[in-house]
Structure formats: C-alpha cells, structure tokens
C-alpha cells in the first residue's frame, strides 16, 4: 500500500478525540481569584502531567494548592442596647444580629489521578481517584467512565460514568444549644450524645455523593459534533454549611443565632447539551446548555458560548460568555425575622435566587513546537452582588 498524503492523514485521524488527549505533556498553571469587598481571595498554583504508557494506556495526574483567604457573608452578632438576666456584666457584647462578611484563612490541597485504558475497538475505560483536603474538610472521590463506539467509523459514542465522593467535615456549633437535626422531614432537634455542645467542641460529620452520567457524542459532519448527557447527583449525610448561621425566632419575639440546617438528602438530575462547530478554517464555536433541578426546589439553567480563533500557527485567541440562573432552595430566606426553631433553614446566598454572567478572554501562544504559554482573564458577576475576577496563566510542555 502506498503511503500517500491522504493515507497519512487517515492514519493520524483514525485516532479519535481521545487519542489526541493522550499525549505526553506537563503543565504548570497559576490562578488568582479575587472577590469584591475583600471577600475571598485565592492564589492557586497547580501542575498536571499526562503520560502514555505504550499505545493503550494513559495516566494523568494533577495537583492544585489553594490558599483561600477572605470572607463570606454570614449572620453574626453585634451589640444590643441593654441587657436583662442574671447579674454580671456582659463582656462579649453580642446582642443584635447583622449579615456581613466574616473573615477566614485556609489552604486546600487537591490531587487527582486518572488512568485510561484503550481497547482494540478504541473503546475507553477511565478510572480515577481524587483527594482534596482543607483544615476542616476532606474529600475522596472514585470514578469510572466507559466510552463505547457504536459504529465502525466512530461517529457516535456512548458514555456511561459513575463516581462516588466520600466527605468528612469537621463542625463546630455556633449556637448555644448545639443540637442536631433529626432525620425525619419535620426537622426537629434531636440529641447528639457524643457531642459536648457547651464547650463547642468540633465533631466529625460525613456526607456521600453519587454522580451518574449517561451520554451520547455524535459527529454531525466534518466540522461539527453534538454531545448530549443526562446526569444525576445524589447526596446523603451532613449537607449543611458549618460556617453559616441563621437567626431563629422563638415564641415569635425572641431571636437567637444558630447553626443553619439543611436536609440530609439531596437528589438532583439534569441534562447537558453541547455543540461544537468550525467556522472556516480557524474559528470554533462551542455552545453549551445545562438544565438542573433538585428536591431542594432549586432549578437552574446554564448557557455558555465559547469561541476560539487560531490567528496564526502560534497564536490562538479565546472568548466566552456564560449566563447562569437559579431559583432559591425551599428553606432559604435572607431575613432574620423568618425562621422558627422547627424548620430547615439557611441564609446562605448561594442557595438564593440569582442570575450570573461570566465574560472571559484568553490568549495561547506557541513559543516552540513543544512549549506553549497561556494567559486568561475572567469576570464573574452575580445578582447577589458578588463580583469575582480570575486571572490565569500557565505553560504547557509536550515531550
């Protein structure tokens, strides 16, 4: 058989998308994330490695170190006008309640490992493990993903994936009472015998999440593809945010700052639709839509549009816009006059109803055949008032 130009391309292109990812490379990135009002600021260096072992095995490893500092808005105590009760001067003048930023500093280390095995028919099995650890949080995730081509030309593949995350959270109670929520839906308090609520000692809580995804990837023509996925996310365990507080009302008048409380189960599912196409020779357009819904009454739509432009052999520009909207969780309320002592309750603005817009741009420059450098900036704005910027910079080296 004569090896002509077309055959060569054929052999090279016989490799599907997956093989293209299966190159040998190392990347080093630095990401800087900042929020308005001196809220959260994160500096995150990260590194990744992709390595082919033979023709049928690929190993990917990555590591990121987050240095998280800053504040999140939370209900906390401020001063009262005067006091009533047992004698003794009040030293910790914590009377009334206010919703404002509370500072914190933390570091997070996370690492993951993915191993992909390619089969004779070019199907792929990927298994992965991810570990993430912060001072009060540890997470282990294990995943498995199988991609199967349904036709000889490899124009259609189906993907089935499952992952399990096992989280451990260290919790310190905010309220004086320090009682735990019951398992039943009414959310009444129950005792935790092992927990010393008076000293405010930390206790360990766990939560587990199963993520299931099933999808189809279909090549439409020489210059476009479509991807459709259905997913489900099931969580059980301690799903409350231990850093958040709510103000509860007793006998309609008496208020107290207490821990927020979320149900101990969360069932979510949704669909994600992705389309990518090439315009001319050097512009790609990627459109994504995701619909999400869960039993906390949160529904959300995400619409994202990304474009890349290969300006030259060495220079690629990227730009993107993302629109996000969500409804509030059924037990969310921003007011301190709303919650009684018998309900699930959260004033965490991440569970509120809001919209968000992201604008981003990037540039990728190939310094040499093996080395490329990238720089990116993103601007994120929520209708909650949160504004965040992310600057990313990195280098990729092929070997």
């Amino acid at each position, binding site marked *: 058989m004569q090896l002509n130009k077309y*055959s060569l391309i054929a052999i090279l*292109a016989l*490799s599907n998308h997956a093989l293209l990812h299966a190159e040998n490379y190392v*990347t080093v*990135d630095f*990401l800087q994330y900042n929020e308005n009002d001196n809220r959260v600021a994160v500096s995150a260096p*990260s590194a990744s490695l992709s390595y082919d072992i033979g023709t049928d095995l690929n190993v990917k490893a*990555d590591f990121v170190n987050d240095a998280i500092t800053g504040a999140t808005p939370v209900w906390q105590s401020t001063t009262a006008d005067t006091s009533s009760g047992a004698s003794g001067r009040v030293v910790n003048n914590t009377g009334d309640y206010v919703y404002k930023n509370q500072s914190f500093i933390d570091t*997070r280390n996370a690492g*993951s490992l993915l191993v992909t095995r390619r089969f004779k028919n070019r199907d792929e099995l990927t298994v992965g493990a*991810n*570990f*993430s650890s912060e001072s*009060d949080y540890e*997470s282990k*995730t294990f*995943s*498995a*993903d199988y991609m199967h081509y349904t036709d000889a*030309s490899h*124009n259609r593949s189906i993907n089935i994936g499952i*992952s399990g995350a096992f989280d451990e959270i260290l919790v310190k109670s905010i309220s004086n009472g320090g009682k735990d929520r019951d398992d039943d839906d009414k959310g009444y308090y129950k005792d935790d015998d092992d927990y010393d609520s008076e000293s405010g000692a930390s206790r360990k809580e766990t939560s587990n999440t199963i*993520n*299931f*995804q099933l999808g189809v990837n*279909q*090549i*439409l*023509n*020489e*210059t476009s*593809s479509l991807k*459709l996925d*259905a997913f*489900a*996310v099931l969580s059980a365990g301690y*799903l409350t945010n231990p850093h958040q507080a709510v103000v509860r009302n007793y006998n309609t008048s008496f208020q107290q700052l207490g821990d927020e409380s979320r149900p101990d189960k969360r069932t979510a*599912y*949704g*669909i994600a639709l992705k389309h*990518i196409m*090439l315009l001319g020779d050097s512009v*790609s357009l*990627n459109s994504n839509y995701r619909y999400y819904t*869960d039993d*906390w009454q*949160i529904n*959300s739509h995400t619409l994202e549009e990304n474009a*890349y432009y290969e300006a030259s052999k060495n220079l*690629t520009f*990227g730009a993107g816009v993302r629109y*996000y909207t969500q409804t509030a*969780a059924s037990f969310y309320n921003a007011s301190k006059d709303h919650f009684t002592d018998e309900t699930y309750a959260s004033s965490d603005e*991440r*569970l509120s109803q809001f919209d968000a817009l992201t604008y981003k741009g*990037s540039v990728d420059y190939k310094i040499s055949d093996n080395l490329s450098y990238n720089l990116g900036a993103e601007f*994120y704005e929520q209708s909650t008032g*949160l504004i965040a910027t*992310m600057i*990313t910079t990195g280098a990729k080296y092929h070997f």
Partner: protein
Amino acid sequence: MRSLTLLSLCLSLFVGCSFKSVKPWQKESLAKPIMQFGGIHEAVSKYEGHVYYSKEAARGGSGVGGGGCGCN
C-alpha cells in the same frame, strides 16, 4: 418531568435522524485542539468548575472525573 421530556426529544433526534457518516480521513478539522469540548486549557476549565461549584447551587453535567471540595 420537563427534563425527561426534553431528554427523550433529544434522544429521538439522535435515533431517528441519520447523520452524515464522516470517514476517518475527513476528521482532520474535528481533531483540532480548538474543536474539543473541554476547551484548550484543561487546568483553567477545571478551576472554573471549582469556582462555579462553590458559588452556585447547581452541579453536575461535566463528567464524573472531577473531585470534591469543602465549598458547599
């Protein structure tokens, strides 16, 4: 229920329609880095996902390979 309807609609599109059969030697464009669903900067996409996970309530739909974090 709405999502299930939407899903079956899309699936029927896949099953019902016949798509153009693209031969291996015609896939040069599809193989370009800018034509991959994940974008060209994996570390950035991954971190973006981490930011959205910590600041928004929705999660899922981007594959099972990612990891967890204490940002709920």
